[in-house]
């Protein structure tokens, strides 16, 4: 049995992603050829060995995608669909940038303060949806989508009225130099630094991995996700769990843009990178809501986005095509896992029958 268990784990771990990858390569190739471009050129660009500069960018982007996906995954693990990571990280990024820009705290303390502000703002924004769900029965899908829109409008209002003029747009006050983090430059300066706060992704990943898999809280969370009725009967207070998970999910979402804020941007303004929250949801699905899976998913997505950039320069293909690839990968993974899971379940059942004889008959 143990060998079949290993086989099963292997199949789940390798077979499903492999099937998914092959399917998405085929589908993307079809899309590329329908768009009238060369399939060979496309994959050539995507699979070019990344330059140093690309590696730095892939690392930085992966860290932010990982945090966004982790935030979404916390909720998914207990069937809470926090679609609002987008709004949570945007609002948190704005609040943290404004806080750090004000420079109330000296030097590095300012960074710690800003991180706490970001987590608090993200948590509160997500918490609203959690509280609405347990007190009023509002689906968190609906409320978080609405909160996304409210966050965008609110930031616009605040920037327009209190932001600094910045070219044709507005921004928050840049954070003082003493509170900026130069990051680690593995190669030449021209290739850019890996941001210091990418470490947040590692810390959050390890912490969440332990919390979910090893603690009582994590057990309650997973139990609620697997079988809410059984969780209730086992003594889990589901309403409280809903609020706490939303708070945690939102707090992690709050951290999403922090690596970029202190590593590169120094302010919240027009170059702010949108859509990380939505992409994070896709990455969470891709990684099956497990931190390790999410890690691979985030690297894959970051790789695709980064490599797609020269598409229009080199192969005359719109880089948007790569978003098709990303979407297809997610769908293919979800489907492939389900297929492999069913196949494995049937296989296990057969093995069990053989191993235990015909005891099944009443």
């Amino acid at each position, binding site marked *: 049995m143990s060998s079949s268990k290993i086989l099963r784990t292997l199949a789940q771990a390798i077979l499903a992603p492999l099937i998914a990858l092959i399917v998405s390569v085929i589908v993307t190739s079809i*899309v590329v050829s329908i*768009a*009238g*471009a060369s399939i060979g050129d496309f994959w050539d660009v995507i699979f070019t060995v990344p330059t140093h*500069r690309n590696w730095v*960018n892939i690392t930085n982007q992966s860290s932010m995608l990982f945090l966004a996906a982790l935030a979404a995954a916390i909720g998914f693990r207990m*069937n809470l*669909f926090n*679609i609002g990571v987008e709004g949570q990280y945007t609002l948190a990024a704005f609040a943290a940038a404004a806080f750090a820009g004000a420079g109330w705290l000296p030097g590095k303390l300012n960074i710690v303060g800003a991180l706490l502000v970001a987590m608090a703002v993200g948590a509160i924004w997500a918490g609203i949806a959690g509280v609405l769900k347990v007190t009023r029965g509002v*689906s968190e*899908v609906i409320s978080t989508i609405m909160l996304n829109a409210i966050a*965008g*409008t609110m*930031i*616009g*209002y605040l*920037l*327009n009225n209190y932001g600094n003029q*910045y*070219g*044709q*747009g*507005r921004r928050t006050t840049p954070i003082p130099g003493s509170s900026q983090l130069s990051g680690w430059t593995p190669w030449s300066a*021209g290739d*850019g630094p890996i941001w210091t706060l990418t470490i947040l992704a590692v810390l959050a990943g390890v912490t969440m991995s332990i919390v979910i898999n090893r603690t009582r809280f994590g057990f309650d969370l997973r139990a609620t996700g697997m079988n*809410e*009725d059984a969780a*209730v009967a086992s003594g889990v207070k589901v309403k409280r769990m809903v609020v706490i998970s939303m708070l945690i999910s939102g707090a992690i979402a709050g951290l999403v843009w922090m690596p*970029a804020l202190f590593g*590169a*941007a120094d302010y919240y303004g*027009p*170059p702010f*990178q949108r*859509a990380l929250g939505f*992409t994070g949801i*896709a990455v969470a*699905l891709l990684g099956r809501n497990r931190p390790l899976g999410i890690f691979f998913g985030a690297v894959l997505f970051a790789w695709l*986005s980064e490599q*797609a*950039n*020269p598409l*229009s*320069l080199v192969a*005359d*293909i*719109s*880089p*948007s*095509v*790569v*978003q*098709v*690839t*990303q*979407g*297809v990968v*997610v*769908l293919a993974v*979800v489907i492939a896992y389900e297929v492999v899971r069913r196949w494995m379940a049937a296989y296990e059942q057969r093995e069990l029958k053989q191993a235990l004889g015909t005891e099944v008959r009443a």
Partner: protein
Amino acid sequence: MLPNIEEGILRRLSKIAVVAVVASLALTGCGKNDDKKGSSSGSNDVCKSAKGDGPKVGLAYDVGGRGDQSFNDSAYAGLKKAVEDLKATCVEGEASDGEAESAREDRLKNMADQGLNPIIGVGFAYSDAVNAVAPNYPKINFGVIDGFDPDDKPNANVAYLGFAENEGSYLVGVAAALKSKAGNIGFVGGVHNDLIKKFEAGYVAGAKSVKPGIKIQIKYIQESDLKGFGDPAGGKAAATAEYDAGADVVYHAAGASGSGVFDASVDAGDGKWAIGVDSDQYLTASKTQQPHILTSMLKRVDVATFNMIKSVADSSPLTSYQTYDLAHDGVGYSTSGGFVDDIKAQIDEAASKIKSGEVKVPVKPGA
């Protein structure tokens, strides 16, 4: 457990919603791609056939790229002219939605590494990226349409190509006020930022210069989210509200959302006008929309693009702030359709007053 039936349904709904989110992620890509089909891969791309010995131009488009019938296409028109008149060759890049700042920098670096000169970023979003990249390539000249210098350190090899949109808007404001029978006109902005407020300010000033008591309705589609420039449904809703409230001319500064404004003018019926923006939108509008497009405020991105390339070809590259105003033929209004022929004299009179400095057009609303 009685309450669980409902929750079960909700959970299923949630799952459906997530699938929808994923699907839409896939579909946004799809949509974009379809838009691009005709242009990006088609043989009509001038960069594919260009074989001259003139300047080697790098043109980095904003989101939407070539084929947006607006800003990016206008830049392409300038590039095409450069290829024809200056024997230029070219390479094009395009931004994707929600991309990282590093992706923009990367695009410019890739172009610089290929030895292109000049390199032009289309859209103010390239300002930071150019500022970060330009110092590393002192021999290459950069231009940013609508751009600005983000810090105090001036770059000797960067030109910021700005436009006096307020002046062009003033002229169509004059046209709107003259054409309005109801004494009630409207404005629809895509995003409530300083750039679009400049359009609003000029339009209001122009209209009031003709009819001081005119009623002007102002609406914005989005407060800060740039998707206000790509939301035809939002544009239609805003414009419809203004027509319903009595406006008979509506001017939009909302990018691709403008097609919704045109639709609203068609729905509002005969005698209701819409005014286009950036390029002569009468030419790209549908047959049913055309009778409603009074004029368009022209923002000559093509002129700015061509001038930038020409300056490099002439070995006297443009640097620092360049303002394309009425006097420099950087903004204007279109006459296609012939609907403003009867008031052309009055509009041109307003234009000459601005050129002579007799009239100063405000850049901020309420000024």
